[in-house]
């Protein structure tokens, strides 16, 4: 599903954010990426949807090498990957419905199937009744659920989440995690960078720990392993 082969990433300021990353994530896996701030978690995540390019090595998604993907092909890569961010990244001038529909408009989906599909995912995240509201009118947890709905609306095989609970209170964080669990049980691979010790230690999954650009741990049912 996702493979990194001897991936290095050095930023222009000399910081080594990825030092020989060599991992393989199988279809349907749920993987936490943990580590202190500035360790390279975000780089790890960003390289998967080509916001960052590795300096050396190869990244394969679904068997396709995305390392040397032409800029014009990047949108097509992103259509097969759902991305969820800490700050939700919703379009504030569009309604909840339009925000989710946008991901399908981009791929020129038929309007009828857009409607059907958007209502399906809104139902899944439990916010069908707020379809006509603006993002600003929703709570943080609700906004994150909308952003998750958007990430899965075009049924990607992988969902990548960068600190999805970072801005949320503990209770809401659990709700969001339950949602990811639900999506995972339906067969979608999930890669999530997180700082949330409690979650990682309670909902057990594979843990990849990164420190100073090095993978220091990769355990099948791992623990968070840091003081939070």
């Amino acid at each position, binding site marked *: 599903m996702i493979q990194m082969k001897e991936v290095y990433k050095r930023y222009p300021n000399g910081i080594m954010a990825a030092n020989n990353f060599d991992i393989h994530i199988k279809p349907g896996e749920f993987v936490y990426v943990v580590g202190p701030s500035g360790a390279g978690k975000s780089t790890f995540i960003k390289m998967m949807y080509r916001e960052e390019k590795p300096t050396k090595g190869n990244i394969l998604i679904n068997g396709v090498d995305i390392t040397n993907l032409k800029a014009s092909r990047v949108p097509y*890569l992103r259509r097969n990957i759902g991305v969820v961010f800490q700050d939700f990244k919703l379009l504030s001038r569009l309604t909840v419905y339009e925000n989710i529909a946008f991901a399908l408009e981009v791929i020129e989906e038929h309007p009828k199937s857009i409607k059907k599909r958007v209502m399906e995912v809104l139902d899944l995240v439990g916010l069908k009744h707020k379809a006509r509201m603006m993002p600003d009118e929703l709570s943080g947890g609700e906004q994150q659920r909308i952003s998750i709905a958007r990430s899965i609306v075009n049924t990607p095989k992988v969902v990548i989440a960068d600190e999805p609970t970072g801005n949320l209170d503990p209770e809401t964080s659990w709700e969001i995690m339950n949602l990811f669990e639900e999506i995972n049980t339906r067969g979608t691979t999930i890669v999530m960078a997180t700082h949330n010790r409690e979650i990682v230690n309670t909902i057990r999954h594979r843990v990849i720990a990164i420190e100073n650009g090095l993978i220091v741990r990769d355990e099948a049912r791992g623990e968070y392993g840091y003081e939070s």
Partner: protein
Amino acid sequence: MKARTWSRHIRESFKSLARNGWMTFASVSAVTVTLLLVGVFTALMLNMNKAATDIENDVEMNVYIELEATNEEIASLEQQINELSGVESVSYSTKEEELSGLIDDFGDEMSLFEQNNPLRNKFVVQAVDPRQTERIATQIDSFDYIYAVEYGEDKIEQLFSVLEISRNVGAVLIFGLLFTAMFLISNTIKITIVARRREIEIMKLVGASNWFVRIPFIFEGIWLGIIGSIIPITLVSILYYNVYEFMSPRLEGSFIQILEFSPFIYQINALILLMGVVIGVWGSFMSVRKFLRV
């Protein structure tokens, strides 16, 4: 791209115009002012150009023929001149015709000369390109039986250089104006885009292609250009109509004419509209470019 995607882009572009009210107003004002200036200048330039061409076309050479030339020799001379490259027309005028022209112009005193006509038979020669007049004159001068070739040498040279300079100055001014307009518009659009930077970033992250992001902005540029050209088109039309009404009777009979209102105003309005659209599109294109590298 599918038809409904296009209609989405057009809808988006209108929404964005409405949403960015003040920025839209600023861009439209910039386009309006520039196009008005460009329109007035172009109208002026084209009329000056017309006047220049009228004057240039009026340049003719008077080729005086020696008195002893026979009719055959005159005929062969005419043929020789006609064969020169760059000669547009040659017309022959006898000294009798010349004299009756003088009598018409200056009155009967001139008829004294009918006894002993001091004038010469002449050709009136016109060059295809008036700037070739000097060369052609020199060539004609070298033929047999030519008494003299006259064409007001110094004045013409001077006129040409003045016309040349004023044309160049006008062209530079128009280019300068257009450039400033593009700069202004691309700046205003850039400001609206900076405000929407996050939006563009999100679009790209959910997999929108560059064109998907770009096309609504390009439409927006087109609308800005069209809206911005309304006032210039109206004003230039009214202005030119009045100038035309005022000038054309006064120029009646002179060899300089102002450009006809009817085809000219449509041409210049089409030009204004086209320029509005071009600077609008160019402005949006340049300003989106920077934000697409996500």
